[in-house]
């Protein structure tokens, strides 16, 4: 392919990304060094947005909560996703129906699923889960106002929303495992458990890594579902980083754009650190191909 052809084919898309992704990103970085309000040019104030952000205990809490959520949700999704995909792989005619039913949770807007989810747990709205727990144990759990019950509910919702996608990926991976490989393991006398640990999982580790990466990225960005699921997120220590940015930089009455931008930049750095192992792997691959 000639250079000119490449430029013509690639150009429009590149221009759009440059104008609508790179330019805004540069603006955010600029703002993070400024005292600025919407619609007016800012004043350069050096690193004071950063020092203000880093000295706010709220940021620390948001980071800890987001990381905790990420670790637990990712681990749960990998284990459950693998188990369900394995079961699914052995399923016959029922499979398309069960797959379709499970996918609903993934294709629906996150916020809509979260609203539906919150009703199951909300005592004020006659939540079914509350009712069952109360009937069984006599306890009344405050899902929305106590830290840990709320965390568990948010984690359950996040798993619920992201699991179908991971399960599908793993299922697609399992179907790529050659039959001969499984048969060879059985002939060699491997138990079911050993076949999984020593044959199947190593074969699909690429996909498992990819699922892990996608899940980490999605959970680090948690925002939508906290709006209905954790209305008092800040007060009970269940605020995500994105919710904190939103509260600082956009919500009515507090438009600290500079501070919010600084938190954004810090969040980008955190995300890059979390993704570093994957990025290094990809760069190595790129070098090998070059």
């Amino acid at each position, binding site marked *: *392919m000639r250079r000119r052809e490449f430029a013509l084919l690639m150009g429009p898309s590149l221009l759009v990304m440059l104008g*609508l992704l790179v330019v805004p990103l540069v603006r955010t970085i600029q703002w993070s060094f400024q005292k600025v309000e919407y619609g007016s040019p800012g004043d350069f104030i050096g690193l004071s947005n950063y020092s203000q952000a880093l000295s706010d205990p709220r940021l620390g809490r948001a980071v800890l909560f987001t990381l905790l959520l990420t670790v637990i949700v990712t681990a749960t999704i990998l284990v459950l996703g693998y188990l369900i995909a394995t079961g699914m792989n*052995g399923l016959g005619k*029922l499979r398309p129906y069960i797959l379709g039913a499970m996918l609903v949770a993934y294709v629906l807007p996150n916020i809509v699923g979260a609203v539906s989810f919150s009703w*199951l747990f909300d005592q004020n709205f006659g939540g079914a889960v509350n009712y069952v727990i109360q009937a069984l144990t006599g306890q009344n759990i405050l899902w929305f106002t106590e830290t840990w019950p709320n965390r568990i509910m948010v984690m359950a919702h996040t798993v619920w929303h992201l699991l179908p996608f991971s399960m599908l990926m793993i299922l697609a991976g399992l*179907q790529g495992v050659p039959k001969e490989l499984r048969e060879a393991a059985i002939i060699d006398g491997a138990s079911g458990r050993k076949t999984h640990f020593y044959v199947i999982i190593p074969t699909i580790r690429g996909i498992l890594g990819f699922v892990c990466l996608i899940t980490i990225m999605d959970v680090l960005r948690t925002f939508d579902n906290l709006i209905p699921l954790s209305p008092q997120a800040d007060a009970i220590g269940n605020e995500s980083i994105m919710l904190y940015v*939103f509260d600082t930089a*956009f919500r009515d009455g507090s438009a600290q754009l500079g501070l919010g931008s600084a938190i954004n930049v810090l969040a980008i750095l955190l995300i890059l650190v979390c993704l570093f192992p994957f990025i290094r792997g*990809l760069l190595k691959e790129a070098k090998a191909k070059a």
Partner: protein
Amino acid sequence: MIADTIKAPAGSVIKPAPRARRRSAASRISAVLLILTAVVMLAPFIWTALSVTKPTDVAFANPPILTGYTPTLKAFQDLWETTYFAQYLINTLVVAVLSTIVALVLGIPAAYALSRFPGYVSAILLLLALVFRSLPRFSVVLPMYEISKSLGIYDTTFALAAALVAINQPFSIWLLRNFFAEIPKELDEAAMIDGCTRWGTLRRVMIPLMRPGIFTAGIFVFLFAFQEYLTALVLTDTSSKTVPVFITTQLGQTLPMLQQAGAAAMLLTLPVIAISFVAQKYLVAGLSDGSVKG
């Protein structure tokens, strides 16, 4: 490989297990467990569907009332008559359709160009796509808010669609590139020897071959736009509000309004259930062919 891609790109990924297989007790148990899992996954919708078809005075009663009431569609009627739901629904669809079309028109040539370049270009592209996908949305959306205000296009479906095209562009290009990469380069060369220009090759040879891949990418981009909450929350106000934003503004208000939010959620859920049943094989194909092998 290529024959598979052309003839049976989608359904081929998930084949039902052979029917002749003996049904052991273990596989029965696993089938029952899976059905239970599917029911648990659907539970929030079943519950919402029940809540919005009850009369308002029993809809949110505690303990929940499950029998002895007359089901009603009043919440849907109110939703239609007392709110601008129809407008929000149109906005959501316009944004999703518009951004899907533009994303594909921009993305297909770009993905084709990239697929005909050496391997390391695609690895770097994959890396950039991942990094941009993982960026905190606010870091691009807040500046977009300011830019759209200064250009006078704030709160228009156009601005929202443009933002979503850009945000989803890295992912679309990357997915499409992986589909193009499965088509051998010899085909381009043959077409060009026969007198096609590069553009003609793309239009007459590649795009027809790529139809399933384009369909998969289209479904993904459509779903992303349709689901988007954060971007719509920041870039719209009243006239181009989308359904997800509308639903959250109904929360914490009166019980009838809450029920209307539930009704809106159900109206959004039903077509999506249809999508997830019809599109599942394309989604799987997109995920396995597109994202993993690349």
